């Protein structure tokens, strides 16, 4: 029983990342009609915002300690972060310790800017082109972005730990007499994802801007005829989608050390999530994200891999096939989306 609940928690956690990325993908597809293969790279850039701020806060001045030696036998160069000398050792260390949550403040403007540059600079030129062209150009862009990151940060994963206060595990089943130790940061990640998803839905549901965007997603032409510049709003939605992916990446950094390839690792699965959820359906993307996350977790249990070897590697694609055979538009897909 304990193991079962733990796998559900793991699934929700994995599903959080899938849902956040798929939500952004669906926003872009639903508004601009673009299949954005560079969306995984936005997730990766978000994670590297956390890495960058952490490195920036650790930017140090060097003093020579004659009493210690380096690996060549020379006096040791001791590095002290400027932050610690400006704010004192304790406060400085705390600021460095909280670098991941603080990165959210950096990631929001950075991701909006990246999103705007990407949309205005490249993707807008492909609106009227075939989906195959869009896929090729965005996939190429993803490779360029990851190679840039590799050039500056290397290919090795970079440890970006959460604040000390949020490390460790909590027994989530203590009140019910169950033994359910679960990492604190993963709980934070799930709550954060839920908040972001709720924020995006509220924005679209309860603001005038969101209402216009939803109307544009349903019938772009009519909204345009009413004199509303829907393109400008859709560009803003692209930036918001980039921001959602970036924030998902920032908070994911302590779960698995960021590396330049992490966006690609999530990209294919997120596309499957979008297709299973239904192209253009935001609730579908979220539902499918959590559903496939949980299924993947269960398929990785010892029982499942012993009973059906290799099931953990194919479960998501198997479910996608079954869903598409029984519901060709996905779980919550609408008629007319990506159909002639």
């Amino acid at each position, binding site marked *: 029983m*304990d*193991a079962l609940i*733990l*796998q559900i928690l*793991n*699934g929700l*956690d*994995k599903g959080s990342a899938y849902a956040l990325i798929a939500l952004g993908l669906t926003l872009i597809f639903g508004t601009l009609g673009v299949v954005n293969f560079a969306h995984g790279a936005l997730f990766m850039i978000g994670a590297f915002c956390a890495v960058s701020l952490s490195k920036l806060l650790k930017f140090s001045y060097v003093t020579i300690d004659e009493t*210690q030696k*380096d*690996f*060549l036998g020379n006096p*040791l160069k001791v590095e002290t972060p400027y932050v610690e000398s400006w704010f004192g050792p304790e406060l400085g260390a705390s600021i460095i310790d909280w670098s991941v949550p603080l990165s959210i403040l950096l990631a929001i403007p950075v991701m909006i800017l990246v999103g705007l540059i990407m949309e205005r600079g490249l993707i807008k030129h492909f609106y009227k082109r075939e989906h195959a062209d869009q896929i090729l150009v965005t996939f190429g862009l993803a490779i360029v972005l990851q190679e840039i990151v*590799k050039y500056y940060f*290397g*290919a*090795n*994963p*970079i*440890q970006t*730990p959460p604040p000390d206060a949020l*490390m*460790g*595990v909590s027994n989530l089943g203590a009140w019910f007499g169950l*033994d359910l*130790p*679960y*990492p604190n*940061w*993963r709980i934070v990640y799930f709550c954060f994802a839920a908040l972001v998803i709720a924020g995006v839905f509220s924005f679209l549901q309860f603001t005038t801007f969101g209402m216009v965007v939803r109307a544009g997603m349903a019938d772009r032409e009519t909204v345009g005829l009413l004199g509303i510049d829907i393109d400008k709003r859709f560009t803003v939605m692209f930036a918001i989608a980039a921001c959602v992916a970036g924030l998902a990446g920032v908070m994911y950094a302590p*779960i*698995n*050390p960021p*590396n330049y*390839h*992490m966006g690609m*690792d999530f990209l294919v699965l997120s596309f499957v999530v979008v297709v299973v959820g239904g192209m253009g359906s935001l609730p579908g993307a979220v539902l499918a994200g959590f559903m496939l996350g949980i299924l*993947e*977790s*269960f398929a*990785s*249990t*010892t029982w499942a*891999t012993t009973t059906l070897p290799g099931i*953990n*590697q194919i479960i998501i694609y198997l479910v996608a096939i079954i869903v598409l055979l029984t519901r060709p538009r996905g779980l919550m897909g609408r008629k007319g989306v990506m159909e002639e």
Partner: protein
Amino acid sequence: MSKTNYTRRGVLKTGAVAGAGVALPTIFTAQSAAAYTNEPTGSTVTLGFNVPQTGPYADEGNDELLAQQLAVEHLNGMGDGGCLNTFSSKALKGNGILGKKVEFVTGDTQTKSDAARASAKSMIEKDGAVMINGGSSSGVAVAVQGLCQEAGVIFMAGLTHANDTTGKDRKANGFRHFFNAYMSGAALAPVLAKEMGNDRNAYHLTADYNWGWTQEESIVASTEALGWNTVNTVKTPLASTDFSSYIAPILNSGADTLVLNHYGGNMINSLTNAVQFGLLDKVVNGKDFKIVVPLYSELMAAGAGENIKGVLGSMNYNWQLQNEGSKQFVKSFGEKYGKPPSNSAQTCYAQVLLYADACERAGTFDPCGVAAALENFEFDGLGNGKTLYRADDHQCFKDVLVVRGAQNPTNAYDTLEIVEVTPADQVTYAPNHPMFGGDEATLGTCNSGA
């Protein structure tokens, strides 16, 4: 209207003469006249360095390349001479190899077998490389070794740890300086018994490919020989990034030890996830929960950060070794590049020097002559202490290091501490050991490409 006087016979004659003319240079310079593949005829000799320059092991590949460049410098008499000063064989004089200046070309393995074969093939066929060295994966090593055997050049493997490289897939033209999974198990077992006791329940997470399987087999055999019980062995897909769903079942499995048969990014993520789930803070069966990472590298240690504190593993080499060869190599590498060398750098450096030395001693670049010079060659002074290149399987036998994640690192390179230097005798096995292909495994015959 134009008129031509071409006849069928005339076209055939012209074609035959032109064809012979075009082929003439290669007829007299290529293999029909050469004694062996890519016999150097000018004043230079070309070596091929095949390392991952892109992909997940690009940093490791870069370190290998730095070491290979350093070796070429030392062979050509530049720099401080490095391990030419400490190498027990005195055949190398710093004037290239057999008086020919050493040049090199590089290829990108991408850590993919097909890409690695393609880049090695290009270096052999287009650039005239007489030897291929480098790599950071056993799959790549086995693939490139097979290619070199077919092409008639020597393959001096880089980082490859699977038993199969010098086991069932051993080749007469291939040589491995790096240690292997069996040696990791044999070196680790006594230390594990001393530090953790003989009554442990081990749970293995294993990367689902050739190297992972051979390492799991080796570690299970050596720990069960201690009296440990293997609770479960779970294969994880190589492409896995989040291991939480594999870690969670361990919590209720009754295991008190987790063995991570993972390398590179897999190991960094699985160890990070295991620590996140508080495994190292648990007490199971009255014992502190422990994690073992049988194969360590400096880059993995750096990537894992604080998570590796206290975690035991094994290595082929560590820059903290205090023998003369190691001190000299660390000095040369450190002064040139500003950082200590990794164990993948050291194995590539040693392999380039060993190849050059074998050519000098054999008096030829002929792969069969070089192979004969390397077989049963005993040497010292390259950083690992006394070493034997065994003739039966072309595997080096030397001391193996058992290391632990440093508890209180003083700098960025102080990530691992040496716990024990396991003597070579303790990690030596029979050439027909069942884990290495048994009696059926043979080197075959040397191919010079003639």
